[in-house]
């Protein structure tokens, strides 16, 4: 193979990648440009043009000292605590949900007793319980993490139960005839078989965690993204408010992308895995 064809191939691949990027982001870019012109023409103070938002966002987050990677105090005081609570709450909810779901799903009758109760808990709009968590834990991280866990645990739990229930009967009987030890059975047969369902539940919980992180901070917190958003709104500082909103969109997008990549990697062995999102 000569160098020319090799570079040609690399070039073609790069070109194809670039086309894909352009194709998926073109409309997005066009809309942003339209927004820019419409906002400048309309002059509504509620909808500042995207360039103004971008400038404000850069000023808000990236004008810190070099020693802290140019990140400002706003990032350290508001973004990181929010992310910590959200991910902390999500991970705790995931652990609790998977463990309880495995226990309840393994037992034949347990779900008959607690299933309707769990379905009822899942139907409760979590924000209405935030006042209760607030008086129990105070206006700190405890209340926020508590609300996130309460909201995020049910999809994981119920999906785990469903996944555990869906283990192939042949596998169940094979494992039994080999007298597979219980720990092996749970870790090597049940958990992998339930994994696709568990991941579906985890993904729902991730967006619930993001939602509750914001809601709990809107209701009562001393710092955080939601708190900053509310402050900006109350000061009628719309470019700043939009900056935080855009940050939430970016965070949601990034979390979703990372989660999907992880899911694809973990579940790559699944033979019937469909290429859907």
């Amino acid at each position, binding site marked *: 193979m000569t160098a020319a064809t090799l570079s040609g191939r690399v070039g073609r691949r790069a070109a194809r990648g670039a086309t894909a990027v352009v194709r998926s982001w073109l409309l997005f870019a066009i*809309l942003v440009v339209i927004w820019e012109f419409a906002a400048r023409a309309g002059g509504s103070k509620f909808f500042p043009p995207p360039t103004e938002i971008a400038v404000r966002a850069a000023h808000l987050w990236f004008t810190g000292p070099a020693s802290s990677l140019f990140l400002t105090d706003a990032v350290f005081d508001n973004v990181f605590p929010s992310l910590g609570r959200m991910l902390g709450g999500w991970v705790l909810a995931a652990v609790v949900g998977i463990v309880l779901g495995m226990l309840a799903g393994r037992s034949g009758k347990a779900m008959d007793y607690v299933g*309707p*109760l769990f379905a009822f808990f*899942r139907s409760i709009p979590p924000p*209405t319980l935030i006042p209760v968590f607030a008086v129990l834990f105070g206006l700190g991280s405890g209340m926020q993490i508590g609300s996130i866990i309460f909201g995020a645990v049910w999809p994981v739990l119920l999906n785990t139960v469903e996944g555990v229930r869906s283990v192939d009967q042949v596998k169940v009987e094979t494992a039994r005839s080999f007298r597979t030890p219980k720990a092996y059975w749970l870790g090597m047969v049940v958990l992998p078989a339930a994994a696709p369902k568990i991941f579906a539940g985890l993904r729902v919980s991730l967006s619930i965690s993001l939602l509750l992180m*914001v809601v709990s901070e809107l209701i009562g917190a001393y710092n955080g993204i939601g708190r900053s958003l509310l402050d900006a709104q109350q000061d009628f500082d719309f470019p700043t408010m939009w900056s935080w*909103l855009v940050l939430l969109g970016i965070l949601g997008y990034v979390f979703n992308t990372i989660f999907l990549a992880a899911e694809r990697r973990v579940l790559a062995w699944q033979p019937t895995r469909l290429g859907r999102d």
Partner: protein
Amino acid sequence: MLKLLRGLAGLVGFLLLWEVVVQVGLVSKTFIPPASVVLVTVGDLLGDPTFLRDIVATMLAWLIAIAIAIAIAVPAGLLLGSVPVLRTATAAIVEFLRPIPVAALVPLVLLVIGSGPEAKITLGVYAALWPIMFNTIYGMGEIDPVLMETARACGTSRFRILSSVALPQTAPFVFTGVRLSAAIALIAIVSTEFLAGSEVGLGNFVLIASTGSTRFDLVLAGTVVAGALGYLINEGLERLGNRLFRWSTVDREAIA
């Protein structure tokens, strides 16, 4: 029948546990009143016209939001599902808009629309759009190609294929999306009422109970009613879906 009894036994067990934990004094009685008190409050509230008006306001907003969301999301899903170019072009926008939590939009909506019923309906629609749209697109991918090609070979027009072949074939998926959206929209509407303090509604009731008078029996009673409504809606839609789409052989899995 046995299953129902066991479910009831579980419920009674939970209520007893709640009662005992509070009566023994593990948690403060002011902040978490015992189950007996909350249940009596629920009973009182259900006979209270003001509270019933709150429920009606919330449910009405919910119905309108779901109707609007279906009217937008189903055609959008059919369109995106049948034109791949369009789907690629809009993927970035959708993936950026979808994860923005509804609650984060509350401050913006309050400013632009105000705190009337329009605000909660708008956010309810926003939250309900995505599951319906994604399930419609997903359902489009599951249609038997032979059906589509037969229709095309018979010279059926594009619009006719969408309305008479694609739509009935995707209906079970659309319904799954509606069921998911129903729960999400209710949560979004109650949350908006709670955050924005609209004039009537279940969320507003909880807000007033928790801030003004700090009556936590009312907060928990309102929460229980909201949860029961959500549960009944979900359960009802699930039964309805099973009955309506018994003819459909495709294995449909909810995607959220």
